[in-house]
């Protein structure tokens, strides 16, 4: 499939779902002529139309865009890394409120640096711990921004 056709299909699909959701929004107007539905409807339909135009334009002979290639197969490693980083990044955020800043940050940095900087365990461990301590020191201690406090942080005198 070509890039334009795929973009068109995505635009039609997303725009379609969005338009359908907009249609079932409750009608409610506080003296406001347009209400909460009209603007989303215009945007959603606009997306569908632009998508259709892209698909049709791509069918003209000789005007086709390049083939879409994400390299899912060819760059399996790369995609594995992306998916792994995404999951770990989300988990990092979710555990931070429970476990505080320092431990999850060190672990996250250890993960990401191991992924990128393979085989240098000592270097990575030092980098991770130093990064966590310095950022905590700069942001939470010196600049007094609030960072999540867990077990370790509540032992600190500040």
């Amino acid at each position: 499939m070509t890039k334009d056709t795929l973009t068109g299909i995505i635009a039609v699909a997303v725009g379609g779902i969005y338009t359908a959701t907009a249609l079932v929004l409750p009608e409610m107007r506080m003296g406001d002529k347009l209400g909460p539905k009209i603007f989303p409807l215009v945007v959603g339909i606009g997306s569908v139309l632009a998508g259709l135009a892209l698909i049709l334009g791509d069918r003209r002979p000789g005007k086709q865009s390049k083939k879409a290639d994400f390299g899912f197969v060819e760059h399996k490693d790369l995609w594995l890394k992306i998916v792994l980083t995404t999951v770990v990044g989300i988990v990092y955020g979710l555990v931070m409120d429970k476990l505080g800043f320092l431990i999850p940050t060190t672990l996250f940095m250890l993960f990401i640096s191991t992924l990128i900087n393979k085989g240098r365990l000592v270097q990575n461990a030092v980098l991770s711990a130093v990064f966590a301590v310095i950022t905590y020191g700069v942001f939470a201690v010196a600049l007094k921004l609030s960072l999540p406090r867990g077990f370790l942080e509540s032992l600190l005198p500040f």
Partner: protein
Amino acid sequence: MQEIFANLGLGFQTAFTFTNILWVFIGGTLGTIIGMLPGLGPATGVAILIPITFGMNPATALITMCAVYYGAMFGGSRASIMINTPGDASAIVSCFDGYPMTKQGRAGAALAISALASFIGGMIGMFFLVFLTQPIAAAALKFGPAEMFSLMMFALVATITLAEGNLLKGAVAIAFGLMLSTVGIDALTGIIRFTYGAEALQDGIDFLVIIIGVYAVCEVFKNFKDINAVYKFDSKHIGKVWITKEDWKRSLPPMLRSSPLGFIVGVLPGMGGTIATFMSYAMEKNLSKKPEEFGKGAIEGLAAPEAANNACSCGAMVPLLTLGIPGSGTTAVMLGALMLLGVRPGPTLFTDHPEIAWGVIASMLIGNIILIIINLPLAIPLVQILKVPTRIMLPIIMGLALIGTYFLNYSSFDFVVVMVSAVIGYLFSKLEIPLPPLVLALILGGTTEQALRNSLVLSDGSLGIFVQKPISAVFIVLAAASLVYSLAKRKKHAA
């Protein structure tokens, strides 16, 4: 006129004390550093200062906060230029040509022109602030919902025309951005829209989180592939931190045009550096004789938005100083801090506290000079960052991006948004769907819808309001013209 100079003299008397200059220096440096970090922008920088300003006199406090504000403007684009990760929304445009320049081994020139453009934009902005504050503030009041909506339309259309290749893809990107902007509680009715049951989405999607996702995190993804390769720019290819005569000649007229534009956008309520930088970039690309060089390292494509951005931050001071109204998030925080010190800026600030109002203006002039003195030499150690091996640099970028995300809303849910948007951003880049129109539409979407609905409340439902109001009509015509012009140019190009 004489009065203005007398007042300015008074201002310099206030500003030219050892303490105040020291604080301008500290504030400017702190602002530059904060501006460089993803997620931390001028508003956070000023908020950090609130406890520190508790003990200061009001003039010093405001001077310090302003120093952080424009320091962040200087710093915001550093990271855009060097590692393609904007420090905040107004630095997105600096990626367009700044990063290609770095890739071509001209990081030094890019950093130099960005500091120089910031300086020139700031100085021109200051000139307007000193001489034209009152009339401009009065004219800005003419801007109602209808004018706002038409201006938004113009800005969005201008951004579509920026997109390389297919205009329809730009339109799809705009539609996606607008869709994202409608997620959350509708301010006019309190109805919850498009959250699909996720409570965390009720407040809407923070565009800054998306920016960190599609730029900073996505940049890390893109680098996964050639991770073990030697870093792309070895030290010989950074270039001197200075610009050539040719660079200067190309950049000067765009900077001179973009500064007044940025200033005016800054004065308007609810506008900010993002729209100023996008509009100045679009304007320069359309005026340029070599538009095809834009996005591929054209130095004027970096100089123009940088100048607009700093002029814009001067403009944002106008509503605060003349009316006591915060025109942006940053000036709102400043207002709060000033109130804690017992000063309530209002329409009478210039007459009741001339030493504060003019002291701040004078300090901004001094600060601009201090910042260019800090920033030009700073570029020399800064470019050394490019020598840090990728395998060390990428984890640090990733870590800072996620911590920056946390500071935006102190929310762990934003980590989901940032990671997912990074993956989608990566897929979109493979499909050649342009991301800048998406981000701009997301930023402007909320205001656009509100302005549209508010206009129609005022006109009792008639769309005529957009052409009956002269300022609004001008923007509508400009929007239509730039769309037609761009279509015609593409057709000619294709033929």
